[in-house]
């Protein structure tokens, strides 16, 4: 089981801030493929990966990052702090 978090318009498009999923995905990219296959709203939210950032266990990573030992994966648009 892995926690998936969504922020900003990712949260709005997916329709929830957090969910737990059972997955055998090896990488973030694999996990995204699984989500997209589940429901249309995921396909819409993940349509343009250039507009999405990902953090695994609270650290920014690339889409090829492994998640076998991860507890938490978060998806969100580019950050706008400051």
């Amino acid at each position, binding site marked *: 089981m892995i926690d998936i978090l969504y922020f900003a318009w990712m949260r709005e498009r997916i329709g929830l801030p957090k969910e737990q999923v059972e997955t055998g995905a090896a990488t973030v990219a694999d996990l995204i493929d699984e989500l997209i296959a589940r429901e249309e709203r995921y396909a819409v939210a993940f349509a343009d990966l250039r507009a999405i950032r990902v953090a695994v266990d609270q650290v*920014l990573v690339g889409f090829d990052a492994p998640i076998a030992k991860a507890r938490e994966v978060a998806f969100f*648009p580019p950050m706008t702090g400051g």
Partner: protein
Amino acid sequence: MSVRVQAGDFDPAEVLAGFGTGAGAVVTFTGQVRDLDGGGLLRMEIEHYPAMTEPAIAAMVAEARRRWSLSDVLVIHRFGALVPGERIMMVATAARHRAGAFAAAEFLMDYLKSRAPFWKKEITEAGATWVEGKDADEVALGRWG
């Protein structure tokens, strides 16, 4: 070193009391909610990623301390609903000389802008719009190598 992520406002004089004692140079940056060009901003809503925000900022501060000799660093960033004119955040740096204090403050601002997990949404009568990351912000990051 101090990193604070909070919903409430802060008093610059209070949070800077005793900051930079003994330093020759103290630089502060304060970000404030600016109205839209044509006016009409009702409020700005700032969302963040609680488990990640403080560690991410602390890592930026640690990197700034590796690059410059800083006697003091402070980062405060708010989240939640803010109206135009309100303080959003502040960075303060203290060093022996001005060059290090300025460089570290700019470095931290560039990283906070596009690497700290905050997202801003602008609310007007017409609706809500997520603020988009600027290409200029990515360019700014590039100068730190």
